[in-house]
């Protein structure tokens, strides 16, 4: 079982949803405009003081949503629609994906990101994680290596075929009985690298667990990795491309993402170590010049922005 917040059982959440609804009804009945406070979270800032609280996992402020601004009213409309769907999922013990939710009112939502933000707001309001709302995302991660676990009663035995990819379970809370003889966990950015390792029978000679999120890791991948480290206490190494996006993926594993900042403490794997690829590797391994691609203007802009993130100054100045 992974790290838990308090009071995230379905009944508790249903009770919180009712409480939330009731408080809005009470306000309206009294002729008052409902005022909803949503905590704001971030896991990094670009402040230069070095004194920020970004790594604490605590909220950095509150937003007040009211019936005084059109953008707030729209946000409230979306939030309530999603909340209604969540209430139904919890009451009926069903699960739905974020995409499913989007397709319930696509003309109103207009974009998936709108639904995602509403789900985040609800998680913050109800102080839970997304999977507690019975909202799931389609899993994208792969795992292989010296690992065995039980998922919702089914035995998944990667050890029998250590160079075969298995999908990372979506319902990470259903994962139990993790068993491993691995010496470390290797996280790779790309599916192509993962496949290359599999083709090279890497896990035959190396007793390890290899994971890929196939790009930016989704929540189940991050949760699964977190769970493995909590249970197995193994060193974790991360191999990403030597470019801003690779670096960003590394920081996502290590520090969490901004949009899931409210859940950062449950998702980040701060023990992860940067294995490479480093700039000097091109010399160390004599990589021919023509294999290197120059940074584009966009790439450079991204790097500039990323360098300001407070956790880089504070946590890993040696990077």
């Amino acid at each position, binding site marked *: 079982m992974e790290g838990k917040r308090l009071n995230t059982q379905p009944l508790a959440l249903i009770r919180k949803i009712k409480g939330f609804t009731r408080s809005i009804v009470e306000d309206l009945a009294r002729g008052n405009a409902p005022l909803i406070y949503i905590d704001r979270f971030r896991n990094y800032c670009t402040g230069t003081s070095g004194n920020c609280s970004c790594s604490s996992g605590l909220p950095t402020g509150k937003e007040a949503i009211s019936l005084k601004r059109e953008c*707030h009213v729209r946000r409230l409309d979306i939030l309530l629609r999603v909340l209604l769907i969540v209430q139904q999922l919890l009451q009926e013990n069903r699960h739905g994906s974020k995409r499913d939710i989007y397709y319930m009112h696509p003309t109103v939502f207009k974009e998936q990101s709108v639904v995602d933000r509403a789900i985040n707001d609800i998680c913050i309001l109800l102080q839970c994680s997304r999977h507690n709302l019975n909202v799931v995302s389609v899993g994208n991660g792969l795992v292989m290596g010296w690992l065995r676990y039980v998922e919702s009663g089914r035995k998944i035995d990667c050890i029998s075929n250590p160079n075969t990819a298995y999908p990372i379970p979506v319902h990470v809370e259903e994962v139990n009985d993790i068993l491993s003889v691995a010496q470390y966990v290797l996280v790779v950015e790309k599916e*192509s690298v993962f496949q290359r390792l599999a083709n090279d029978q890497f896990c035959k000679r190396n007793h390890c667990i290899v994971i890929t999120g196939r790009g930016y890791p989704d929540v189940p991948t991050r949760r699964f990795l977190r769970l493995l480290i909590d249970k197995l206490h193994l060193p974790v190494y991360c191999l990403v491309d030597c470019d801003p996006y690779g670096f960003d993926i590394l920081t996502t594993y290590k520090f969490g993402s901004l949009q899931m900042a409210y859940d950062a403490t449950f998702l980040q794997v701060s023990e992860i170590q940067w294995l490479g690829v480093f700039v000097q590797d091109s010399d160390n391994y004599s990589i021919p010049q023509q294999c290197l691609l120059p940074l584009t203007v966009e790439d450079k802009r991204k790097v500039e922005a990323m360098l300001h993130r407070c956790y880089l100054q504070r946590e890993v100045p040696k990077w």
Partner: protein
Amino acid sequence: MEMEISSVKMLYKHLIFCAVQRCRMADYLCRLTVKLTPVSRFGLPLVRISVSDTGVGSKLEDYQYLKYRNDPILANQWDGMLYLATTSVSDSEIHNLNLNLKESNSVGTLTKLPSTAKNGAKFSGTEVSVSISKSLDDLLAEVTCFLQKMILLKVPKVVMELLVGGDDSLGSQIGSRILVIEGSSVYSPVESIKCLKLGLKDYVRKHQTRFSVGENLKVGTGVANSSGSSQGNSQVVEAVVIISEMSELVPSSCIREQDMKTEVLYFEDFVSCSIAQSSLDALTNINWKSYGLALRSIANHDGSVMLEWENLLPDFHIHIAIHCYHRQVKQWVAENSLPDRNLVRKAVKCALDDLKENNQGVLLSRRALKMCDYAPDLAKTLAQLILSSNDLNFQEECCSLLGVQSQEVNMDNVGNCIREKIISVIGLNDRNSQKNKEAPTFLFEDDCFQKEHFMEEEYHEGEEAYNFLDL
């Protein structure tokens, strides 16, 4: 002080104005009669307009300030002659005078005519007559239209009537009565604004030219007083705004231009008149946007003011009446004390606020209207959150908070109830936000847009599978 008469209309309006003030100055019930009598002179059709009243006697100064404009149209219609008969209570005779304003002297030539004896009778009154070369029908139509506007006001203690005299050269004393306007019994500020309100309501009802299935008049009134100008006479400005929303059977393609226009009915000292420039300025300077209205233009045609709006809903009409008067009645001799622009603005604004305060969902600012668009959806979702809950106690609790009876609980009723409350809250916030314009903004208000951008930026990364170089 001069007043240049440039048209026949202006002439008889002024005569009626003076008569009204004389009646107001008297402390007994007065009669004011406007009589149109057709006469024939040298074979040419003429109409004698006489304005007579039983108010206090008039002074010569009222008329000596009139100037005759050198205008060919006016010259064709009026010879510049004014016949005046007047007497005060204390006079022993009725003075008869002829005034020729066409003379090029700075003051018109005055000819005294033989007085008429009163034989000890105690009364006062005035009769002023002019002869106009215009068709009776045209004049009658004009004068009727003008006096019909006067119906909006109830001049205290004055009964007005419009007569048409008989068609003989002697000028019959008995004419057919076209119009009677009752006055109010006594002046009081409360009565005065009430009369204007009722008057405008009647006027609006009478002038609804299209077939309407249902009619809904929403009224707001406002009064502004000055504590006393330098001349020592306090001004009062009364304003009434009416919104009529008619459920029409006529399809919206038949929207006429007039629908998007408002004629402002304007009165000074209890007489319908042309709007003063200061009042026009006041109307221009009102922040119509905060009432959800967009003013396209203000046009002043021949003293009549038309406000033209952008994008009014097809069944939505606005009517405005403004009355500026001096609390202390004075004849028209004094300096031109234009109504205070700020007073007019204040009165109209009060009327608009009054309308908004007492009628939910009316005159909401554009911003509030946009938010109200969400009200049905918000209400429906909240109703569903309540009624789809497994917890019946919770459902009961919420419905009882909303005031929906248990036997009436269904999605529609609960939804409608919530929607009303949301609109009411939005309206309340809208009114309050106008009142508290100087109040500090919310701590997080400005962050709204920044946050949108912030979140949008970050959402490109994260969840979605990202294949950079898919080798």
